[in-house]
């Protein structure tokens, strides 16, 4: 029964992620920027699972999220590293459901994902190397960090508790 619940939960998570990425509700945006949904979903999963499982999960999540974006920059490298770090942290810390703790991890995770995407774009598109100050990148990075930091404590904590129950 519990196993079925878990499958259903994973399925719902995948549907929710897709819906959140595509619909991108306006009321959940700051300056037109969405929360970093992959981070919000990966964080509880990594904290509750072994590094190997978390790493595999992050690769699948990365492939899934990448399919909704254009261009060549990918979520996979940053999510992979984050999954290993969070998983290791989750194994050694028992009281990780703390509201602010989750929020802080999501903030650092989002910043890391954002910087990774920015760095990849600089490597891929030579035109971005002409000027190293990209106002739009700072704008996206800061807004994404803020909105993810606000949303993650609710969503990720809830997901973490549900993982625990299942």
């Amino acid at each position, binding site marked *: 029964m519990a196993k079925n619940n878990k499958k259903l939960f994973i399925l719902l998570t995948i549907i929710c992620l897709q819906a959140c990425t*595509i*619909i*991108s509700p306006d009321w959940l945006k700051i*300056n*037109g*920027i*969405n929360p970093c949904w992959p981070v919000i979903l990966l964080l509880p999963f990594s904290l509750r699972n072994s590094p190997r499982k978390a790493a595999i999960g992050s690769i699948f999540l990365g492939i899934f999220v990448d399919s909704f*974006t*254009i*261009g060549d*920059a990918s979520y996979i490298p940053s999510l992979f590293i984050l999954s290993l770090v969070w998983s290791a942290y989750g194994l050694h810390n028992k009281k990780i459901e703390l509201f602010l703790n989750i929020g802080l991890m999501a903030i650092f995770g989002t910043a890391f994902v*954002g910087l990774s*995407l*920015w760095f990849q*774009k600089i490597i*891929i*598109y030579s*035109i*971005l190397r002409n000027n190293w100050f*990209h*106002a*739009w*990148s700072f*704008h*996206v990075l800061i807004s*994404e960090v803020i909105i993810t930091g606000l949303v993650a404590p609710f969503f990720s904590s809830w997901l973490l508790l549900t993982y625990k129950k299942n």
Partner: protein
Amino acid sequence: MIKARGKSRFWIIFFMGALLFGIRWTKGAGYLDLYSILLKPILPGTAQREWIKQGENIERSIRLKLLEDDNNRLRRALSLKESNFEQRISAAVISRSSRNWWKQLEINKGSKVGVLKGQTVIGPGGVIGLVDSTTPLTARVRLLTDPGHQLGAWIDRTKQHGVLTGMGTNRPKLIFLNTNGLAKIGDAVTTSPASTLLPPNLTIGIVQFVNEKALPSPYAIVQLTASPEAIDWVQILKNNGQK
């Protein structure tokens, strides 16, 4: 008594003469003004003015059609892309990510109705992007503002070609291919008529800033005339693209 009558006759003749002289001098202006005032109630009204305007518009659209046909015939002769604006597909924006790491739109028309990768997407105001990928029912549009997105464009006034490059902001950069007589602030930027990929003469934006001394090549900052953040309906031009 006879003297007084003679005096009044003199004044009558004097006024009549002055009046005639005035009419002659003003070339009958008073008469004409009076005539126009009297005629005003029976002059063609606003309705007639609208009919005339409508007629003028019809005449203009016929002329435009003829010129477009002529233009297409000449472009065909030169093996350039044609601008057949009748082949358009209207689509609604179902998802918008115009400020994120990727600047893209999802629209509700796909390969089922003939949308192909590489087709030009326009909104009210001008070009907003190109189709990046399609599904049977939807298509993903890469906006002109997406970092690294490059498109051939030119300044119509100076006939200078350049590469319009998305920089992540709402103002893409037009990197010029040569160095002299480039552009002025306020110049219109359109798709190049020599383009073999895009339909010609589609409005892209207005030049807002020019840096002629920039290295390695001079550039202009272009303000797009169609704002992807405010557009809910777009049109896909069917005359380019690949399967």
